[in-house]
């Protein structure tokens, strides 16, 4: 299971700066081989938090083999440039349990706020919806 006690859990903020090499690989994976150094709009992604101590899968007890990604929501408020440093804060917004024909599933919404360090402006809010499947 995923306990509802996780709702509201927050993590210490961490800092993130777009990495030019990762930006290049990102565009390349999308079939855009041009030399665009601008970070893709979806460059901020919760997965980057793992190496900054936001170990969601461990903390929520979601083994990788039982994890699915149900969806994403991005809200953009200000552009992020290649030289912008961001402060990222993460929180577990919601945990919902549903039981159906496929067994029990847990839906977890996690919200990441990306603020521009230079003026504290909220630039992007990303919500990822994770699923933990039942089983062993």
């Amino acid at each position, binding site marked *: 299971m995923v306990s509802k006690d996780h709702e509201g859990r927050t993590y210490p903020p961490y800092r993130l700066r777009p990495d030019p090499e990762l930006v290049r690989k990102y565009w390349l994976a999308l079939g855009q081989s041009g030399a665009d150094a601008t970070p893709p*709009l979806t460059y901020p*992604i919760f997965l980057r938090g793992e190496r900054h101590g936001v170990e969601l899968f461990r903390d929520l007890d979601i083994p990788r083999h039982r994890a699915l990604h149900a969806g994403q929501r991005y809200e953009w408020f200000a552009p992020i440039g290649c030289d912008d440093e961001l402060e990222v804060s993460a929180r577990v917004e919601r945990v919902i349990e549903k039981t159906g024909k496929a067994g029990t599933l847990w839906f977890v919404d996690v919200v990441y706020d990306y603020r521009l360090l230079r003026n504290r402006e909220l630039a992007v809010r990303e919500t990822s*919806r994770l699923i933990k499947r039942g089983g062993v």
Partner: protein
Amino acid sequence: MSLPSSAGDVVFDTEIAGSSRATIALFSEATEDPNPIHVDAAFAERCGFPQVIQQGPMTTAHFARLLARAFSASRLRVLDLAFSAPVFPLEALRLVATVAAVAAVEAGRLRIDLQATKADGTVTARGHAEVDAETE
């Protein structure tokens, strides 16, 4: 040429070529995604899939890229997608964006319906975007 701005206008209807396993692995690198389900076929099988699966966020990234190209990145406010079926290597996707309504969510915004579909008709992602209406 005027931009799509009326309900029913098609913003884009584009086929994205299937991604190779190498490209999927590159996207994992670019997003710092540690989940082996995208790169390790044996692990993917253990998770119940016949082979590695493409990242849902890759579909999100393509929609964001195409919407930014259609309207400019500065007008894109929201992108919200639910992933409904796995995408496997080399499976092409048809990405369709259609203006659903004007000012349905907030004054001065267009709501765009989004859908990603495989060649066999399987819908792999569905959602919407919100875009600032064009200013004079």
